[in-house]
Each structure stands twice: as structure tokens, then as C-alpha cells.
């Protein structure tokens, strides 16, 4: 099986190299046959990459512990689905999987956009990028290496009786889907990147490359965002520290390209409509892709310590060389094309949709920069001062909370500003009701005793944004009915179907508002730690937790000890919960299994941290308000994104070559 794996990996290397050479030669000789063969080589490479993944999967499922990678991350007693997910539990396998996903995107693009005039250069770019990863897979972190025992007579093959097992923290359904989703997001940006490079290369610099990759970009952005949120969800339900986001380098690594990707999704609308910001957009998509690669480098290199990083320096420098090389090439390409990237229009007024987008971009980039700065601060401070200094959560919150609130505000303000310039009249007409609603919400909260300034701001702005979104829908429906009649409902459906991008965008914005409401709940988190004997209880607000029993048991995979507690609110019993401590048999690692009582008002989050020497159970109770709104917001964002991906029912006039006439409305 490993022979098949290694052979496939080699085939991927050869085919990618061929794709680069043949597409470039094909362009040079104007041979569509050569170009087509390059395209097909890329598709074939995807097939071989799938084979290599399948080969490793087969080794995992067969418990073939001769192989170092399998022995390191699996064990015979694991259920089959965790043997599958163990494939991406370590560095080598996850990089193999990463290459495979990138090739899936590349092949899908090579098939669906085969007639695109940028295709030869897109294939060359994709081939070049993937060649690097394929090289890493085969030579540097090959997952098909076998264990050997070093003896006096030289190394002899060695097969352990059982594997090391999968880290029990990773034995969770979310962890089985989170990495593939996150990776899909990371690698998906390779498509807009390749189109951007191809457009720069060939100097076809109108908005066509942007329009043709819009859906790819959205899909990548959507997967990256979902991956980040799923990671948060996993941390919340599995890590047992009561939160879902810790500004860990690995989390930050994924957040950075998401921020620049979000900026890109917004700023392209100015280019499509007004032919402005061409350099900016090309730069953004290049930066986004490089941040994606940098993110996986950060996760794998161990240059900044992180809880869930795979530490390995073996290949760190190669990754760094690749990133720097790609950055220099892209920058050179951009600089030599500056003349062709001249703007077709100038900003006309300070208060306009254009400057709204610009400000939104500035905020997103500032947030990205702050995250990068904080993440790399240990490295930077060591280089400058010779002392490693890290900045923790206080830094990230201090900088990003105000930036986030400003972004939330822009979510409401932006769509209400007119293109070119907003007159004072239109400002009054559009903003009076939303502003009053926001103010009213703020005043009410203060009157009810809320004192946390950021939380009040956040809730007030949320009210403002929700009202602006509602009024946008209402205005659209009214205009539609005036024009065509019909009921409110049919007019609404009709309106949305005719401009999925715009109204889907509004729904994504609504999801963002819900997300921020959930974030603001953090300001009111409370917790209590108590050592309890049977029958004793601890209280937090109206909630009371009473220890009933300390049951224990065992499964083939782990031993467990539980703290059975009765949760009651205002002395009314709510339910019996059993947070546990589990001891994984294969790895010997203990984990906490938290239990939650979740409502839209708040989560009661129960952790059993262990037993004291005198036999009392240490129970940690968190009262986390509004956490559910985060997951709800994520779901609404999901719906909105799906809507923006749908085609318009009767397409509005589309102009692929003349962005001036493109009637694609703003999100």
C-alpha cells in the first residue's frame, strides 16, 4: 500500500512540473494542444493525490503500525471514524491532505473554466504552487516512512504492538470535520490567487478575473470562516476552559486571511462598478493567499509556541523560503504592471459608498495587522531587543474590540451610503430611524443598569444595524410592489431572488450582528470553583449546583470518573448533569468532558476538575451569557452565504468586460 502511496506522490510531482512547463511552452508556441495537456495533467495530478490519501487511509484502517505516522496517531481500539480523522492529526498527513484539497480545487477549476482565456497562466501558477507542496509531501514530510529499531547491525524494521493512539482531545466529532473544512478554506484562496497572477501576467486587468472567481473566493471565505467558528466550538465543548476563543497563534493564523479575504470581498465591488482600487485588490488577494500559506507554516513550524501546533522545524525553513519567494514574485509582478492598473475613476466625496468600503477595508486590514503583530511579537521582540516578549489576550482584546465595533457600525452605515456622494437629505432619510433605534437601545440598557461601555455600544450598534438591514429589505419590497403589485411575501421572495448577492450579503451582515451580540456576552461571564462533598452545593446567581454522586466506569478506549450534579435555578430543579474526567488508555492523557445547560440567555458550563486529597470533588461552574448567539450567528452567516452563491433568477444585466455597466449591486 505504501508503494502505491509513494508512487502516487511522485506522480503528483511529475504531473505538476509538466503542467507548469507545458502550459508555458504552449503559450509560447501558441499550441492549444500543449496547453490542454497541461490542464489535463493538473486534473490527473488530483487523481493521483486522491490515491495517495487513500493509501494512507488504508494503512490507518488496517492498523498497520509498521508505519511511523500510523503508529504515532492511531491505535487498534480506536473506532474507525477516528482512524480516518487521525489521517490529519499530525504534520505529515495533514500536509498530504492539504495538497489533495488544493488539487481538488485546481482540478475543478481546470474543468469548469477550461475556456477561460487566462487558463494557461492559471494552470502554470497552480502547478507551480502545488509542485512545492508535492515536493514537501514526497521528500520532506513523507507520511509513508517505516519504523526501524537501531541495532548494532544497523536499523531493522520494527512493528509496535499498538499505536500511540490519537490525542483524546482530538477524539471529538467536530475535530473529525473541523480540519478538512478549515483546510478547504485555506487552500481555496489559491484559485483567486492564481487568476490574479494570471491577469497580472497577461495584463488583462479589467474586472473579469474578479467576476470569474467571485464564487470561488466566496466558497473559500465561507469555509475558512466556518472552520474558524467550528474550531471555536470545539474549544468550547472539548477543552473545558469555558471559552471559545483564546487568541492562540493557531487561531490567529486562520483569522488573518479571513480578515483580508473579507476586505477583498468588499473592495472588489468598487472595482467591478467603478474600475477603481485595482492595485489594492490584486494586492489583497495575494496577501490573503500568502497569509493562508503563512498560517499553515505558523501552525507547523513551532516558531511561536501554541497549544495545538505541530512542532517541527525540519521543514520550517523550506516553507519560509517558499513564502518569501512567492511574495517577491507576486510583488514584482504587481510593480511591473502598475501602469496597467491605473484607476478609471477618482473618489468623488468623503461621504460615499466608495469611501465607506475604503474605511471598511482599512479596519479589516488594521485588525489583521494587529493580530499579526501580536502573534509575531515574541519573534519580533527577540530580534529587536534580544528578549522574547509575548502579548496575550489583553493585547488582542484592547486593539481588536474597538476595531470590531467600528466594523460592526460600518456594517450598518456602508450599505446606506449612496455611490459617488451621499446628499445630506439622503443621509437624514436613511439614518434617522436606525440611529434613533440604536440610541433608544443604548438608553434602555443603561436605564436597566448595564454599565459596561463596550457592551452597551455593541448592543446599541447591533440594534442600529438590524434596523438598517430591515429597512433595506422593506424599501426594496415597497418599490417592488409599487412596480408590480402582489403580496408583501411574494415581493420579498422576488426581490431576494433577483439580487441574491445583495440580499444574501445583508443576511450575512445580520449573522455578524448576532455573532457580535454573542461576543458582547463575554463582558458578563462569571464563574465559581468549589470543592464539594456529596450533598453540598455552590451557587452562581440564581443557579445552584449540588453534588449527588461520584460514579465511575470504563470503555475500551478510556476510564472515567464523573461528578453527578443537580442543577437548579431559583430552587427549581433544571436537570442532572455529569461532567467527567476521562483517562485515555492508549495515550494516558486525561481530559475533561464538560456538560452544558444552554439557553439563549446564558450557558451554564460545568467542569469536573478532579478530586482533592480529602475526597471532595472540585467543580468549576461558568455562567456564560449569550454564547448561543455566536452559534446562531454562524448559522445565519451560512444561510446568507449560500444565498449569495445562488444565481439571480432573471439575471440583471451583466457586463463582463465593461465594469462601468455592471449592474451587480453591492452586498
Amino acid at each position: 500500500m505504501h508503494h502505491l502511496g509513494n508512487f502516487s506522490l511522485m506522480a503528483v510531482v511529475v504531473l505538476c512540473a509538466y503542467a507548469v512547463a507545458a502550459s508555458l511552452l504552449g503559450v509560447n508556441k501558441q499550441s492549444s494542444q500543449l496547453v490542454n495537456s497541461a490542464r489535463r495533467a493538473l486534473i490527473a495530478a488530483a487523481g493521483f493525490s486522491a490515491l495517495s490519501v487513500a493509501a494512507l487511509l488504508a494503512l490507518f484502517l488496517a492498523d498497520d503500525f509498521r508505519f511511523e505516522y500510523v503508529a504515532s496517531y492511531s491505535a487498534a481500539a480506536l473506532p474507525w471514524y477516528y482512524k480516518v480523522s487521525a489521517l490529519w492529526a499530525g504534520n505529515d498527513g495533514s500536509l498530504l491532505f492539504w495538497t489533495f484539497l488544493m488539487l481538488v480545487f485546481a482540478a475543478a477549476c481546470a474543468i469548469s473554466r477550461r475556456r477561460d482565456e487566462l487558463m494557461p497562466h492559471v494552470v502554470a501558477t497552480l502547478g507551480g504552487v502545488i509542485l512545492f507542496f508535492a515536493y514537501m509531501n514526497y521528500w520532506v514530510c513523507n507520511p509513508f516512512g517505516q519504523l526501524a529499531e537501531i541495532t548494532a547491525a544497523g536499523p531493522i524494521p520494527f512493528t509496535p504492538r499498538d499505536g500511540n493512539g490519537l490525542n483524546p482531545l482530538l477524539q471529538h466529532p467536530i475535530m473529525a470535520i473541523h480540519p478538512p473544512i478549515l483546510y478547504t478554506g485555506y487552500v481555496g484562496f489559491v484559485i483567486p490567487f492564481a487568476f490574479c497572477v494570471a491577469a497580472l501576467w497577461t495584463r488583462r486587468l479589467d474586472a473579469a478575473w474578479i467576476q470569474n472567481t467571485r464564487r470561488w473566493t466566496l466558497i473559500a471565505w465561507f469555509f475558512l470562516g466556518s472552520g474558524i467558528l467550528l474550531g471555536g466550538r470545539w474549544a468550547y465543548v472539548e477543552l473545558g476552559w469555558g471559552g471559545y476563543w483564546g487568541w492562540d497563534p493557531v487561531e490567529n493564523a486562520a483569522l488573518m486571511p479571513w480578515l483580508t479575504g473579507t476586505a477583498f470581498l468588499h473592495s472588489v465591488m468598487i472595482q467591478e462598478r467603478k474600475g477603481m482600487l485595482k492595485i489594492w485588490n490584486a494586492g489583497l488577494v495575494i496577501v490573503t493567499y500568502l497569509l493562508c500559506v503563512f498560517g499553515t507554516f505558523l501552525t507547523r513550524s513551532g516558531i511561536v509556541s501554541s497549544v495545538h501546533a505541530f512542532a517541527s522545524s525540519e521543514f520550517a525553513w523550506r516553507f519560509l523560503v517558499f513564502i518569501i519567494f512567492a511574495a517577491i514574485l507576486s510583488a514584482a509582478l504587481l510593480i511591473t504592471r502598475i501602469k496597467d492598473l491605473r484607476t478609471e475613476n477618482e473618489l468623488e466625496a468623503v461621504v460615499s459608498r466608495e469611501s465607506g468600503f475604503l474605511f471598511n477595508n482599512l479596519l479589516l486590514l488594521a485588525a489583521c495587522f494587529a493580530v499579526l503583530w501580536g502573534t509575531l511579537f515574541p519573534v519580533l521582540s527577540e530580534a529587536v531587543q534580544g528578549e522574547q516578549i509575548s502579548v496575550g489576550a489583553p493585547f488582542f482584546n484592547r486593539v481588536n474590540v474597538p476595531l470590531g465595533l467600528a466594523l460592526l457600525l460600518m456594517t450598518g452605515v456602508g450599505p446606506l451610503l449612496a455611490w459617488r456622494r451621499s446628499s445630506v437629505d439622503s443621509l437624514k432619510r436613511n439614518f434617522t430611524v436606525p440611529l434613533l433605534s440604536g440610541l433608544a437601545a443604548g438608553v434602555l440598557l443603561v436605564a436597566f443598569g448595564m454599565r459596561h461601555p463596550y457592551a452597551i455600544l455593541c448592543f446599541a450598534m447591533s440594534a442600529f444595524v438590524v434596523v438598517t438591514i430591515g429597512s433595506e429589505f422593506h424599501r426594496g419590497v415597497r418599490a417592488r410592489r409599487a412596480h408590480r403589485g402582489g403580496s408583501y411575501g411574494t415581493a420579498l421572495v422576488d426581490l431576494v431572488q433577483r439580487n441574491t448577492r445583495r440580499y444574501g450579503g445583508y443576511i450575512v451582515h445580520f449573522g455578524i450582528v448576532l455573532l457580535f451580540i454573542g461576543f458582547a456576552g463575554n463582558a458578563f461571564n462569571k464563574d465559581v470553583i468549589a470543592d464539594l462533598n456529596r450533598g453540598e452545593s455552590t451557587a452562581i446567581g440564581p443557579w445552584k449546583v449540588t453534588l449527588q454522586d461520584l460514579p465511575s466506569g470504563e470503555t475500551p478506549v478510556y476510564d472515567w470518573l464523573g461528578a453527578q450534579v443537580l442543577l437548579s435555578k431559583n430552587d427549581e430543579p433544571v436537570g442532572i448533569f455529569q461532567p467527567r474526567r476521562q483517562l485515555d488508555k492508549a495515550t494516558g492523557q486525561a481530559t475533561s468532558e464538560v456538560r452544558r445547560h444552554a439557553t439563549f440567555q446564558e450557558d451554564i458550563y460545568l467542569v469536573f476538575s478532579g478530586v482533592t486529597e480529602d475526597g471532595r470533588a472540585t467543580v468549576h461552574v461558568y455562567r456564560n451569557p449569550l454564547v448561543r448567539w455566536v452559534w446562531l450567528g454562524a448559522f445565519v452567516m451560512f444561510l446568507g452565504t449560500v444565498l449569495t452563491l445562488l444565481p439571480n433568477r432573471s439575471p440583471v444585466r451583466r457586463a463582463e468586460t465593461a465594469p462601468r455597466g455592471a449592474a451587480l449591486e453591492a452586498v
Partner: protein
Amino acid sequence: MAVRKAKFFVGGGLFLAALTALLITGVEEGKAYYQTVGELRAMGPRAEGRRVRVAGDVVPGTIASEGEGKVRFEIEHEGSRLAVLYTGREPLPDTLVDRAQAVAEGHLLQDGSFEANHVQAKCASKYDAAYEETKTAPAAQTPAGRQATDD
């Protein structure tokens, strides 16, 4: 035209100034110095009050619960030992077991012990540091700290 450009520049300048201020105050608020146990010892009283991240291996048998989530343990790095009292609000990571690589964040007390309110830990058996061992001496595959359980 010129007025409009000026407006954009002033706006951009204000934005950059605000961002810089946020970054600087944020760093002041959140910074912690990475130091080894030895360096921390060498600093003596000068280290008091400084927020520090200090790394070392958990000395087997030293993890002891003080109740209500407070935990004492000792870490060792290149022959220097440091007694740590964990008083943070988060439960200690499950990976904090005997011989685990731990990073404690907090400050040095006058009596030379260390009060930590944040601890990260990696199981020595799981990550690539020990992975090298597996490569050359497969006998070392039994994970360290198997006996360390709850407490």
C-alpha cells in the same frame, strides 16, 4: 479636489494614530517576558512585579491540589527548579501531567516561588519532541505520566 484629498489624508492620519496608540497601550497591558527558570532566579528581586512566562518540565510527583482549583507543582529546566502555585480561574489544562512541558505565566513572589494565573502544557508523549524518541528507540513508546490522573 485638493480639499477632498486633504480630508482623506487627515482622516487616514487620525486612523493610523489611533491604531498606533491602541497597539502601544495593548502591548504595555498584555506583555509578558519569556524567561527560563535559571534566568528568573538570576534576576532575583528585579523580577518581582514583572509579568513572566517561564517554561520547564513538570517534576514527577510534585503536582498537588490545594483545593478550589489552586494547584501546586514544580517545574525544572536545565537543573533549576521553580515552585509554582497556580491560582488562575481557568481549570488547568488536562495535559499538565508529570514530565509534561509546561509554560507558566505569572510573577515571582518575594519568597522565590512563582504565582501563575495561566498555564499551558504539552504532553511529553504526544508531540514531535518525543516523536524523535519513537523513531530511534521504539521502547520509549509508553507514554510518560500514565499514572497521573485527576487531582
